[in-house]
């Protein structure tokens, strides 16, 4: 049973560019949450998707947007990248929105 998978593993972008990160949830999971983990910090909640809709959102600007597809996979989009967006982006999936969340290995984004 494959766990949560994320792609790409690493990404380097320049300021002002746009980026799309992808997540495939664990088999049987229909809820996907995204977190941002800056170096030396704990993960911070960005948003959660269930039934293809954003259900709750953390304290992140509108430059951060997402999407969930009918097969439950998800994308995180970040526009107008800033240096401060450099971080590990973690995807977590759960069987239902209120269940335990299982994390993927993350995508490390570097903004130059």
């Amino acid at each position, binding site marked *: 049973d494959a766990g949560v998978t994320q792609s790409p593993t690493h990404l380097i972008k320049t300021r002002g560019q746009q980026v799309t990160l992808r997540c495939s949830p664990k088999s049987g999971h229909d809820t996907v949450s995204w977190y941002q983990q800056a170096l030396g910090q704990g993960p911070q*909640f960005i948003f959660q998707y269930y039934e293809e809709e954003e259900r709750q959102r953390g304290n992140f600007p509108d430059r951060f947007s997402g999407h969930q597809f009918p097969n439950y996979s998800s994308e995180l989009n970040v526009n107008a990248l800033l240096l401060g967006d450099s971080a590990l982006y973690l995807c977590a999936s759960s069987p239902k*929105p209120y269940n335990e969340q299982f*994390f993927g290995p993350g995508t490390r984004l570097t903004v130059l």
Partner: protein
Amino acid sequence: QKEVEQDPGPLSVPEGAIVSLNCTYSNSAFQYFMWYRQYSRKGPELLMYTYSSGNKEDGRFTAQVDKSSKYISLFIRDSQPSDSATYLCAIDMFSGGYNKLIFGAGTRLAVHP
């Protein structure tokens, strides 16, 4: 004030030592408390999940919640070099049928042989 505060360490102990990791939280309404372990370049993995106050034990790991002082702890007995990782405390926060995790900053632990 941050919702969850955690000393980032680093903490270095010899193999076999008892390790104590701690967090404090601000909101007395929180009821679900978790400890995650994160190895370098990996995602967090759930170690312990505790509801309300009291202790929960799983092998060498014991999670403790003291709601009166808003303090959560993780104890690791007979620590091993393989326990070297960052340990994150987290609150599982529920709202309107959905949940999100609020993490502390994480404590880096190194267990040396």
